[in-house]
């Protein structure tokens, strides 16, 4: 009986409690249960079944407002997110400043699988430089581990979840060993044009990497590589890999995927973990505290059952927080005791500090070459067939900002939605009537959109803490955010704008809207890109970090973190793949220590 209620969980003995069911929690539960540990997963949101709940072939006219974005569904009606968004009713957070530039907006998804149900599936490995940024330019922090420590886990995660891509041998853009990557999808015509014309500017355009099955996983060879010496685990994952469908080249990944052709924790990590019989899941379990035993170890967690509003305590040999970076910080800070009056794991005073998001800025253009093309199917894998990795490592120190960004771009004759053929006046001179219909046909599919995703350097002014006054509807004290971009980020955003304008112009196109050369205006607000990491960073020194290289808190030996909170830097590479690889690495370590009876 894998999905159980709070009462049943309270009566059961567990080796490990995992708080959170997204990328970190899903991978942690998968690895631990495949390794034989008995695990209880606690998810704050409701149960969610992507097989029966996903809107696959629904078209906009079936939805309210033709599926347009609303405050209830910020990414559109059919987006997979349930009970989530930048605001969740009854669960507020606060801002320390009224200055708009110092806002941080916090995205949450209260559902099984969390944000993995709707994410972009972009899966880029951090490169060797990304683990040692401070050594390279003196800014921020190094990780206490290097690329070589993470590489075997990137290999495993790519084989397990299924990531397409190619090996291009570019600087700090790691290749994967043979057998890890699935073939990339064929480029769209807009991709090929960006490739050609960005190439004339010295900007490389290569195959994207996303967690989508462009063909079935290699169930003959991968299981033995994923779980050497563990035939039971191999058998389970072989069977599961056979059941996942390959992409059938339609329907948006952000809606979720009922044929399990892309990665979401609910379709990839949880089914095999449940098949071990070692995983119990309690949903609607709002964890507010890690409890401390007399021996100074975590005794378990305390949560509020959202259905009965009852308080529940559960014990286990070890606790892993993977609640998402900020929620993990919130739980730690709310876990106060005589021994840890400022929150658990916080004797360094660093819990909540060095919160990072990704630098984001975007710009679109209209490309006359793409007008009036013969109709053809351009759905593909619904995103990022190709992308631009950061290409100016050799210019480090000369650009006015540190680090770099990659470029995600896309075009194509997509499913028309609310907004199709809107705001065409700058091209049409305000046509209406028969002429407007001709213009709509002419310009449909002729736009290419560029979005930069860049590295933010951790700073002392970007952090979260417990608001001394405000509590949520469960009575749990909420987070208060402080945020400040530095010039490294704002200048980078301005650089993105200039680069996008250059590429659009090189393609013979026209920029849509304004090229924002003022970085403070070009940059998206904090939290917009939903790549928040940090807040409980890992390091080699207990005075300056919250966890060690095994993401084990310095203060409490059996408490581990497995989401983005331990990241000491936030490379331009989207964090999810690294969260999964790191969670697998930490889970292996926990299993090893359990075998040695150290936990």
């Amino acid at each position, binding site marked *: 009986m894998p999905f159980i209620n709070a009462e049943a969980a309270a009566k059961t003995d567990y080796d490990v409690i995992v708080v959170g069911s997204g990328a970190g929690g899903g991978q942690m539960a998968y690895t631990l249960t495949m390794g034989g540990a008995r695990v209880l997963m606690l998810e704050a949101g409701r149960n969610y079944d992507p097989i029966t709940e996903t809107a696959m072939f629904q078209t906009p006219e079936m939805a309210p407002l033709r599926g347009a974005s609303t405050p209830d569904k910020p990414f559109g009606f059919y987006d997979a997110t349930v009970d989530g968004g930048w605001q969740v009713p009854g669960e507020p957070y606060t801002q320390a400043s009224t200055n708009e530039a110092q806002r941080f907006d916090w995205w949450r998804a209260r559902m099984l699988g969390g944000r993995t149900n709707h994410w972009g599936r972009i899966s880029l490995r951090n490169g060797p430089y990304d683990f040692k940024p401070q050594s390279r330019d003196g800014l921020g922090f190094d990780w206490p581990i290097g690329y070589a420590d993470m590489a075997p886990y990137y290999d495993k995660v790519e084989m397990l979840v299924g990531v397409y891509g190619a090996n291009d041998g570019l600087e700090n853009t790691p290749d994967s060993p043979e057998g890890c990557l699935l073939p990339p999808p064929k480029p769209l*015509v807009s991709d090929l*044009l960006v490739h050609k014309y960005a190439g004339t500017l010295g900007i490389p355009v290569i195959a994207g990497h996303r967690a989508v099955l462009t063909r079935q996983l290699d169930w003959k060879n991968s299981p033995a590589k994923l779980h050497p010496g563990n035939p039971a685990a191999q058998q389970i994952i072989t069977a599961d890999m056979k059941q996942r469908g390959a992409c059938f080249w339609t329907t948006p990944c952000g809606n979720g995927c009922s044929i399990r052709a892309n990665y979401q924790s609910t379709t990839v990590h949880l089914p095999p973990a449940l098949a071990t019989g070692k995983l119990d899941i309690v949903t609607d379990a709002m964890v507010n505290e890690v409890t401390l035993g007399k021996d100074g170890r975590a005794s378990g967690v305390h949560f509020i059952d959202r259905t009965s509003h009852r308080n529940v305590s559960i014990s286990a040999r070890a606790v892993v927080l993977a609640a998402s970076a900020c929620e993990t910080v919130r739980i730690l800070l709310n876990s106060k005791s005589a021994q840890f009056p400022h929150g658990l794991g916080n004797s360094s005073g660093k819990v909540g500090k060095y919160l990072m998001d990704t630098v984001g800025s975007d710009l679109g253009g209209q490309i006359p070459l793409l007008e009036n093309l013969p109709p053809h199917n351009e759905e593909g894998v619904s995103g990022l067939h190709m992308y631009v990795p950061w290409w100016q490592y050799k210019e480090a120190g000369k650009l006015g900002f540190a680090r770099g960004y990659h470029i995600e771009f896309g075009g194509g*004759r997509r499913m028309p939605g609310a907004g199709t053929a*809107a705001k065409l006046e700058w091209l049409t001179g305000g046509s209406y*009537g028969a002429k407007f219909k001709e213009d709509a046909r002419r310009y449909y599919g002729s736009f290419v959109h560029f979005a930069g995703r860049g590295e933010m350097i951790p700073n002392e002014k970007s952090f979260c803490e417990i608001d001394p006054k405000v509590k949520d509807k469960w009575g749990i004290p909420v987070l208060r955010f402080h945020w400040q971009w530095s010039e490294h980020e704002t200048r980078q955003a301005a650089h993105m704008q200039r680069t996008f304008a250059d590429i659009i112009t090189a393609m013979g196109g026209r920029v849509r809207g304004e090229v924002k050369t003022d970085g403070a205006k070009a940059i998206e607000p904090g939290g917009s890109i939903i790549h928040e990491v940090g807040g409980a960073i890992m390091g080699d020194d207990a005075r300056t970090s919250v966890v060690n290289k095994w993401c084990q808190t310095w203060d409490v030996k059996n408490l581990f973190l497995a989401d983005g909170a331990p990241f000491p830097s936030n490379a331009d590479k989207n964090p999810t793949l690294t969260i999964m690889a790191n969670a697998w690495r930490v889970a292996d370590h926990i299993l090893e220590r359990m075998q040695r009876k150290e936990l």
Partner: protein
Amino acid sequence: MDRRTTIKWMLAAAALPLARDPLHAATAPKAQAKPYGQDPKLLNVYHPGELWPLTFNAAQRRTATVLCDAIIPADATSPSASAVGVVDFLDEWISAPYPAQQKDRAIVLKGLHWLDRESGRRFFKPAHELDAQQLHAICDDICYLPKARPHFVEAARFFARYRDLTASGFYTTPEGRKDLQFVGNVPLASFDGPPLEVLKKVGLA
């Protein structure tokens, strides 16, 4: 312009509830309108009026219809906007309990009212009674904001927004998708990328 026609028009206009109190109508959303929340049933098929009450009265509907169809008329390829339910969509949109839609509500209701008034001022009849030439005479003055004369600027803002909404409503229908020759939303055994004729057209083959 004879006096009798003017009086007839004035009386007709006064009979429109909107015309009596356009500001109130524009700024007062229906009290019972509730957001659909963060966990709506995604697999249901929704129709305008189902989630929140609609707004347009008969006169507003008539004006909304002629303007929709001035923007997207029937042609050899596809039907007109109103023929595929765009007026219902517009009504659903401006009746929705969300900030962006509430902003549009004020723009659209005031704009439709302005159109009838302008139509009466110039031609002594409401917009839905204008012939194509008369309707186009008004539209030509407001269809392009950068070139609108100062006293038409607000109407031109309305027209731009109304055109965007009309297009949104039209191109999200099966007929609209067909008009744009959208190809997709069907499973494929393989994805083959652009055909050769496409590559040739853009100079890549």
